[in-house]
């Protein structure tokens, strides 16, 4: 991955409503502490971004174990490059770029191709874990679970370039301008990809969305 610490533009300011941890930037003092690998500062960075990174990895790969591997690798890279972090910038875009790139690498890897072949022979049991257990109405809960599984399956059917854009926009709350440098495309191309992705999802989900 050719991305250095915080090489994407410091967009940072995506709105609320995205999945994962709050989007608030860390203070400059905290980021200077991260540069020194101060444990308290590292803990603060972890708490601020763990949820977003894990959710992004999960939505991109559709697998909990893959998401854990990727999340761990992201924090390993952050630790190694901590001294080069720019304390004046929100590290969020950089972290999301690392995560997205790792997901793409994994998708292209021989291991992932092998896993995909295996998965095609079986159901995806991990999706059920997304839905919280219990609930007042078991029937409604089952229906919701079924709907969510279908949504995740539909996302999984998208080609990686389309899926990346949907996940970054709808789950991470990033704008097309912010996504563009992360996926190596121009904002107009990102917008097109997003539109194509929604069109495909609409086709895949015709029964679900009735």
């Amino acid at each position: 991955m050719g991305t250095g610490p915080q090489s994407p533009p410091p967009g940072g300011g995506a709105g609320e409503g995205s999945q994962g941890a709050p989007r608030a930037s860390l203070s400059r003092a905290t980021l200077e502490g991260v540069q020194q690998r101060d444990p308290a500062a590292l803990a603060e960075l972890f708490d601020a971004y763990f949820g977003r990174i894990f959710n992004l990895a999960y939505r991109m790969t559709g697998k909990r174990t893959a998401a854990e591997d990727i999340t761990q690798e992201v924090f390993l890279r952050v630790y190694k490059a901590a001294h080069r972090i720019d304390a004046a910038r929100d590290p969020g875009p950089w972290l999301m770029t690392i995560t997205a790139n790792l997901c793409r690498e994994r998708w292209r890897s021989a291991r992932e191709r092998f896993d995909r072949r295996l998965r095609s022979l079986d159901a995806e049991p991990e999706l059920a874990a997304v839905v919280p257990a219990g609930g007042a109405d078991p029937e409604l809960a089952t229906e919701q679970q079924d709907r969510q599984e279908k949504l995740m399956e539909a996302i999984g059917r998208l080609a990686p370039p389309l899926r990346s854009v949907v996940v970054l926009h709808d789950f991470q709350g990033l704008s097309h301008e912010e996504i563009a440098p992360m996926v190596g495309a121009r904002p107009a191309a990102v917008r097109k990809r997003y539109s194509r992705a929604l069109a495909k999802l609409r086709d895949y989900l015709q029964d679900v969305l009735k």
Partner: protein
Amino acid sequence: MNEHDDRDLDPGERQVQEALRALPEVQADAEFRRRLKADFVSGAILERERAAERSGGLRRRPWLWASVSAAAVVALLLLVFNHGPVWTLHQVSGEGEVLVNGRPVPAQDIDALNHLLGAKVDLEVPDGVRLDLICPEVLLLEVAPNSHVVLPADPGRLWGRTFTSRVDKGEIRCKSGPEFAGYRFLVLTSEGRTEIAGTTVSVYKGDDFTCVCVLSGTARIGRQEGTMQDIPAGMRKVMFADGRPPLITKIAAEHEEGLLQFEARSQGAF
């Protein structure tokens, strides 16, 4: 998020978008989060990576394991399949001490000889003792009295089908067996080399010459690879150490007699 991004969505696309955004947040496993945070904050995450590297990349690449294992199995099967007949002691006559790799062994101690004789063994046979070794169905080899030789390697089935013996002193006689086809037996002396293919031949190494007698079939004899010459049955070729031209004549009576006796003994060997 820039609302401008979603301005042009049609109702169907907007419905999809709303459904996606309504998906619940995924919670990571609490133990995984706790452990990763502890490793990240303490720096142990680096040590964990080093440990993973030390434990070997193969474990993280099951397909690589599978390929390496499959290659190993194929190599093992080939090795097993390639393993051809091995040299064993066929007959011993006479009394005295044989030197096997420099170790003295009584010629009548058949068990010890059987145990020690084999491929690439350095063998010195004293005057009065004769050893016959056999590579079953492939070659019978007599080491005549007062000889010093290095025995050939065990021939392989798929590769290693050329096997080579060296005669430093004295005489060997050899006769090819019914399964010899496709093999190539070389006998080296300081004066030259003899290539044997389906023949009964003796190679005698004197002090300053080598004499090769061909009783049946043909043998290719020469100083080196490029100067080999076919010598037919009933003839011999003598190569000299001092550079004189080789001599090709009829087999001498005493050599012919020795070869005939050897051939007679070999009747029941194959």
